[in-house]
């Protein structure tokens, strides 16, 4: 029986993330349809979805699988797409103090962009480890469920949903809604604008490495903006 503080954390984490989680639905539908149109059987498609559980890595490696690209290059591509998670993992790690190793592995496996952005602040602020674990796991398991359920629907619906509905645009909107509260602080806004502009400028880089460069550039710009605004206050 989970403790009451675990359940309180789970409730707050789930309710806070619920409206944002709608952005996962079109993304998972698109993922299911893309895997089917790549020639996967439903079992293979759901196998990939269950094992990998990562939209960017799945969509990014899909065109390479079965196209004669060597396996090592596929894995390197997946690593490049996932490098941001090392940064996320380090940033949120303190939120798992007091949590055992198996649950840390489990939580790590479930770490996604949306839950990270939504939960980071309270994961670092709250003292009770059981509350924190509930607060992280509830939206993470909900994301996992949505991802599997709607990918499955997408696999079987492939071909019957018109492409011009552009359902994947809802994923873009969801990421933006996550960005808005962050960008209200000046250095965060600088980080976002720099990251976005760099990603557009470097969109031609192979293996989507431009994404990594853009994230690093954005972090540096935000850090520099914080530094200069402090010096301005002291002067």
């Amino acid at each position, binding site marked *: 029986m989970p403790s009451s503080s675990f359940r309180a954390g789970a409730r707050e984490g789930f309710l806070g993330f619920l409206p944002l989680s709608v952005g996962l639905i079109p993304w998972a539908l698109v993922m299911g349809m893309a895997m089917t149109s790549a020639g996967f059987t439903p079992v293979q498609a759901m196998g990939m979805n269950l094992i*990998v559980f990562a939209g960017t890595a799945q969509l990014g490696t899909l065109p390479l699988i079965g196209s004669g690209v060597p396996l090592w290059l596929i894995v390197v591509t997946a690593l490049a797409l996932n490098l941001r998670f090392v940064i996320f993992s380090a940033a949120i790690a303190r939120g798992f103090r007091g949590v055992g190793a198996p649950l840390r592995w489990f939580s790590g496996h479930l770490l996604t962009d949306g839950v990270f952005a939504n939960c980071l602040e309270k994961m670092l602020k709250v003292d009770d480890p059981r509350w924190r674990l509930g607060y992280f796991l509830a939206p993470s398991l909900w994301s996992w469920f949505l991802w599997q359920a709607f990918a499955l629907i997408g696999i079987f619906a492939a071909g019957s949903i018109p492409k011009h509905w552009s359902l994947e645009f809802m994923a*873009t909107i969801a990421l933006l809604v996550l960005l808005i509260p962050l960008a209200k602080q000046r250095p965060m806004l600088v980080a976002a604008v720099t*990251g976005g502009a760099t990603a557009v400028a470097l969109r031609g880089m192979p293996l989507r490495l431009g994404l990594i460069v853009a994230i690093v550039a954005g972090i540096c710009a935000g850090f520099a903006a914080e530094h200069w605004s402090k010096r301005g206050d002291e002067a």
Partner: protein
Amino acid sequence: MSADASLWLSFVLIGLATTLPRASFIVLGGRVRLPSVVQRALRYAPAAALAAIVTPDVLVVSGDFAPLNPKLAGVIAAVAAALLWRNPWLPFIAGMAVLLGLRALTGG
């Protein structure tokens, strides 16, 4: 190795290439600490990453920088809805309505 077996092997390796970066510091926990300067800098990771993922989606059309497209209008509508009203579903409704409406009007 059969085509099916090599496919499953690639799934497992891509899965490892996803779970290991995600779990890295969460599992290492207190044993490995990043310097405080790095930790402060990392606070900017989500804003930088979200913008880096989203911006090309909105401003690039088939590889070319083309900011004046229906997606930008949809994004402006969604952001305005998020800033003006508390209703969490409204940005999705406003954004999709503007995108699909503009596409229908322009025939694009």
